[in-house]
């Protein structure tokens, strides 16, 4: 009879611990979880995976029309050099360029002014702590639609009804700044 039992893996490491460790959360592979379950982290993982998936899908489905990418890239670089590093007044005067820049600045100022004034009154109508719920929802939806239409389309729509010129430009631009500012103002009124 062998009084000295051979030391085996089983005898050193008992199958179950001698004392209870309580409930231990393990994942499917049997590893201990060291982080709490976090639904927002899970949502984030799904979202990031979805965005990457859509990107890969997009690149796979684009119609590249068999473009020579290397040549196009080289051409682009030389064009960029011409555009940004070799400015020349070949077809215009400096005064006219600066004047047009100033003109554009004035259009932007006018559009922002008008948009801001309109937005102030409309933001009162769609701030939850001032107006009633129906009014808020109606105005908010209208402004959301106005925001969703691209600026260029507003300008083109106004160009048809008001004719070409600064009126159409300012109206189209101010419509879009109005829509953005209304949302921003309403949010800062109803904090």
């Amino acid at each position: 009879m062998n009084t000295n039992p051979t030391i085996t893996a089983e005898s050193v490491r008992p199958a179950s611990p001698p004392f209870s460790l309580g409930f231990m959360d393990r994942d499917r592979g049997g590893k201990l979880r060291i982080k709490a379950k976090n639904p927002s982290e899970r949502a984030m993982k799904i979202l990031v995976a979805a965005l990457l998936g859509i990107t890969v899908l997009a690149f796979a489905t684009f119609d590249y029309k068999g473009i020579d990418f290397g040549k196009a890239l080289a051409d682009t670089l030389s064009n960029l050099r011409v555009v940004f590093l070799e400015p020349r007044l070949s077809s215009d005067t400096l005064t006219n360029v600066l004047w047009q820049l100033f003109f554009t600045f004035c259009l932007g100022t006018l559009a922002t002014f008008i948009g801001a004034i309109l937005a102030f009154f409309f933001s009162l109508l769609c701030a939850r702590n001032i107006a009633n719920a129906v009014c808020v929802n109606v105005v908010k939806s209208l402004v959301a639609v106005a925001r969703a239409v691209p600026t260029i389309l507003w300008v083109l729509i106004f160009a048809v009804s008001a004719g070409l010129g600064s009126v159409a430009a300012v109206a189209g631009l101010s419509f879009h700044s109005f829509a953005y500012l209304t949302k921003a103002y309403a949010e800062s009124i109803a904090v």
Partner: protein
Amino acid sequence: MSTLKKTENIFIRKRKNDTLIFLVLIGIFAAASLVTGYNPADGIRSFPAAIQWIVTNLVPDHEAMERFPKILSELMETALLSTAVTVTAAIFAFFFSLPGSSITKVNGIAKRTVRIIAAFFRNVPDVVWAMVLMFSFGQNILTGFFALFFTTFGLLTRAFIETIDEVSADCIEALDSTGCPFLTKVFQGVLPSSLPGIVTWILYMIETNIRSSTLIGILTATGIGALFDLYYKRLDFSSASLVVLSIVVLVLGIETTSNQIRKVIL
């Protein structure tokens, strides 16, 4: 007595200030109107006229509905394009913004260089990028892709620099004290703690890029913009209106989805 006088003075001064600001604003408005030949009366009149025109002309009819499958496929392409642009630009912008943030910066010169480069890409309008790229890429989807890519890259770099600055200061300090290497610091500290901010920006840019791609599409004759341009120039306003409506539905859909997502992840 003297306190009362002081209070009055404050009110008078405040009123003077307000009047002055108001007059300056009116002055700027008048000057800008003069320069651009803008007539405020015409401007006000143009609003009801435009709304009336929208109500009478911008209504999809039967003929427009026949074009709906084509519009839908172009819309799909535009949505895919703007998502692909935003995600690609975001990946580049994240790595580019690391030396630009004051927390993960390498040195002051690199930080300033990154900010200047980002400002350059952001401030050259996407239309200009599209025009320049048109010469070499032609009427190709890649023209729109790169035009949107450059502006998105500039804007997101700036946004990510701010997100990283705000979010992860303590976390980086903790990781620094353990002697972490740079890349571990980025992937275990900076990225997880700034991911909600980054994703919010990405969702916002996808929405913006769909709108911008309309204008670029008009220039490069690709996507939904080209289709709108085609119908608009043919004076086929009912088909054009269907294009506008489908853009509106898409943008509103993305806006609603991203609001829901934001509620979950923040």
